[in-house]
């Protein structure tokens, strides 16, 4: 099921969500070999950062709560990884974050020169007080960071958005106006909190954390639906997608590509091949195509 996305041919329409597995070339390649058309690297930051203490990720059964906290070697300390990635046979998206427009620009300019296929701006992570979500909840700051980064990079720019924004469609439009080539929605929802009542303590060391997995899928579908109405650039839809039918649903909301993250927990790394097959089976059974169903939920019912 090959698909063209911003000038690149992907072998499937599935994306590995940032923050899941993407820690080295070997695992990115394994994910790709298992049916992921576009693996995303872990978010790259402006300085070395360890992330939060454990517990950082807890399975709530119908999804995860996590506050890993944007660990990164820092953009200047990844030469070995870029060297290894330089002869790769697969496409990658480099996710980046910063604490200011200047930091985003500095990281983006450096990373762009290393030859990723796409750069994703993480303006939506809820797990740091200084990074990410502070940009993505405001249309002006989203516009400013996208416009500034767009000037210094040579590869297509994807803006990753948070469902915490009061009007995610307006944020998406601001990103499109600033030059974004695609929208990726959504990052984790919330943040939420779980408290262990025996120890009377929040379980996550960071206390609060982003929600992902099946429990947030309706939020993701709504966000993609709203964004599809406000922009004309392609959308990577994700948030709780675990099956082919989930993928069909978010494509009908308007997604061109479909991201998978938490479902790796529930269906393993082979989830990509499984979902691809389920999408194809559904399309065949309904005698239709990806192109025909994209945004279908927006069309007037007969």
């Amino acid at each position: 099921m090959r698909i063209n996305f911003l000038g690149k041919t992907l072998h499937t329409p599935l994306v590995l969500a940032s923050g899941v597995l993407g820690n080295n070339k070997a695992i990115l390649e394994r994910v790709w070999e298992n049916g992921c058309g576009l693996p995303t690297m872990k978010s790259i930051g402006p300085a070395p950062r360890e992330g939060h203490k454990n517990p950082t990720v807890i399975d709530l059964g119908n999804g995860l709560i996590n506050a890993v906290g944007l660990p990164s070697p820092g953009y200047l300390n990844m030469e070995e990884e870029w060297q290894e990635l330089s002869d790769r046979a697969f496409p990658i998206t480099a996710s980046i974050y910063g604490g200011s427009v200047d930091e985003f620009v500095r990281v983006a300019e450096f990373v762009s020169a290393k030859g990723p296929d796409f750069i994703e701006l993480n303006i939506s992570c809820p797990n740091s007080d200084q990074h990410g979500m502070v940009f993505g909840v405001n249309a002006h700051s989203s516009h400013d960071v996208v416009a500034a980064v767009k000037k210094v990079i040579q590869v297509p720019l994807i803006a990753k958005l948070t469902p915490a924004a009061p009007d995610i469609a307006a944020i998406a439009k601001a990103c499109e106006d600033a030059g974004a080539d695609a929208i990726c929605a959504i990052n984790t929802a919330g943040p939420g909190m779980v408290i262990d009542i025996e120890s009377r303590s929040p379980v996550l060391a960071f206390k609060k954390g982003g929600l992902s997995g099946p429990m947030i899928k309706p939020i993701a579908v709504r966000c993609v639906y709203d964004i599809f109405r406000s922009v004309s650039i392609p959308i990577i839809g994700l948030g709780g997608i675990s099956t082919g039918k989930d993928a069909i649903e978010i494509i009908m909301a308007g997604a061109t590509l479909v991201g998978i993250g938490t479902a790796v927990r529930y269906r393993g790394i082979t989830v990509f091949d499984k979902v691809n097959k389920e999408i194809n089976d559904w399309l065949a059974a309904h005698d239709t195509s990806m192109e025909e169903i994209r945004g279908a939920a927006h069309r007037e019912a007969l």
Partner: protein
Amino acid sequence: MITQQMPAMVKVADKDVHSPEFATLYVNQAIDFKPGQFVMVWIPGVDEKPYTISHHSPERFGITVEAKGLFSKKAVSLGPGDKIGIRGPFGNGFNMGLGHQRVAVVAGGCGMAPLAPLVEAFQTGNGPEILLIQGARSKSFLLYPDRFAAKAEICTDDGSKGYKGFVTDILVQKIKDLSANSAPGFDMVYACGPEIMMAKVFDICEAHGIPCQVSLERYMRCGFGVCGACVCGHAVVCKDGPVFGSKMLRTMADFNTRALLKTGQPVPLNEYATWRCQ
């Protein structure tokens, strides 16, 4: 009930202090378990870390902790009545195979902890003949000295007990002895200890055509194969492992060479070990 989801707060029932460095904390709770699997142990306000289950019975299990860093020093200071959070078990565990006639179990230092329940499982019923080769820095670092009925070969780096030298020297000698006597060789070699020791065991096994399984250690977060903190080459240690067989080890790029720091940066193993021991 202990599950892979929210940590279950359980009381430490009792504690064995093995030496100034090692203690085992016991919990009187049932847990579904296979030798080689691990649990995530949470001390609220401190941290959460992976520990192998070193003792197991239907109604009780234990974890052995070596006091090294902030978390483990706190853990060994806990006693009966103190509460810890447990989620798990995670990982694949050792493959005990079917019909093994003779196996070797090679343990270095605290690497004895995941292997101990394996030895006990093999000792029940119609298990294989077990050669246990146990090594440590010195006598006081040899875990569970009187625990097993199996024949044990002991060695220490300083010669304070048993043979002065490495477990791998003994393994090579035993393989040669069996071959010289035309006796059936080892059907499987199980190993856990410093990664350089496990790599040596793997090399020896490869040279003699013996399959082996080793249990790896990496910095972990989620425990269930999502966050990627523990990747070793293309393998996800918490989910695909922590036990890896010969076939996987042959293609695992970072085995005995690199590990990721908490930042995600890959570094040589000795640098990683220095960080982990802080």
